[in-house]
C-alpha cells in the first residue's frame, strides 16, 4: 500500500520536474521571434523567407521541450496509472 503511494507521489513530482525543461524552448523561440520581427522590420519584402525560417527554427528548438513532455507523459501513463489502479484495488 505504502509503496504504491510512494511511487505515485514520485511520479507526480517527477513529471512536474520534467516539465521545467519547457522553459528553454519558451525563451529560445521568443528570442527567435524577436529577431525575426526585427529582420522583417528592416526588410519588409523578405517577410516570407524570414517567417519560414523562423517557424522551422522554432519547431526544431522546440524538440527539447517535447522530449521533457514525452518523459513526463511516459512516466504518468506507464507508472502512474497502473500503480494508481493497483492502489485502488488495495484500498478495495
Amino acid at each position: 500500500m505504502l509503496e504504491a503511494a510512494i511511487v505515485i507521489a514520485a511520479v507526480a513530482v517527477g513529471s512536474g520536474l520534467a516539465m521545467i525543461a519547457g522553459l528553454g524552448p519558451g525563451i529560445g523561440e521568443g528570442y527567435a521571434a524577436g529577431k525575426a520581427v526585427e529582420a522583417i522590420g528592416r526588410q519588409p519584402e523578405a517577410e516570407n523567407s524570414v517567417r519560414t525560417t523562423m517557424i522551422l527554427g522554432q519547431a526544431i528548438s522546440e524538440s527539447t521541450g517535447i522530449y521533457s513532455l514525452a518523459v513526463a507523459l511516459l512516466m504518468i501513463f506507464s507508472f502512474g496509472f497502473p500503480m494508481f489502479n493497483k492502489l485502488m484495488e488495495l484500498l478495495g
Partner: protein
Amino acid sequence: MEARVLFHISSLPITETVFFTWVIMVLLTLVSIVFTRNLKTIPRGMQNILEVAVDGIENLVHKDMGKRGSGYVPLILTIALFILTANLISIFPGTFAPTQDLNTTAALAIIVFLVAHGSEIRVKGLGPYIKTYFQPYFWMFPINVVGEIAKVLSHAFRLYGNILGGTIIIGILYMFAPYVLPVPLMAWFGLFMGVIQTAVFTLLAVAYIQVRLE
C-alpha cells in the same frame, strides 16, 4: 496512451496504428490513381493541388541537393504526404493518428537514416564513409557515432512528442466539454502543428540526406 489492439489476423494483433496506417495507404493510393487519370496541360481542380505538392517537394529537394537529388523526390514526397495525412486525420473523432505512436515515427526516421547512409556508401564507397566518422580527429569517433544516433532519435521523438502531446491535451479536454472546448485547440494542435511538424520532418529528412551526400 498505447494503441489499442483492434482485432487479430490469425493471432497477429492489429493495433490502431497499423489499422489507420492501412487506411491512409488506401486513401493516398486512391487519390493518386483517381486524380491522375486524364492529366491535362492546363491543370484543373484536384490536379492543381497535386501539382502544388509535387512541385513544392521537387523544388525543395532540388534547391537543397541540386540535380542529383531528383532521385529522392518520390521518397520525400511519400514521407511528407503520409505524415501530413496521418497528422490531419486525428481531427475526426474516433481516429488514431499513426504518428501518435513512437513505432511509426521511429520507423520513418530509420528509413531516412538508412537512405542517407546507404546512398553515401553507394556514392562515396565504404572506405571514405567509414573515414568520415574519424573526422577531424581520430578520437572523435564515439562523438560522431553518438551524433548520428542522436539525429535519428531526435528526428523520431520530435514528431512523436508533438503529435502525442497535442492529442492528449485534446483528449483531456474532451472529458470537460466534449464537442465545444477542444475545437479551437484541435485547430491549433491538429492542423497547424500537424502541418508544421510535417514540414519540419520533411525538411530535416532532406537535410540529413543532403549532409551525408556532401
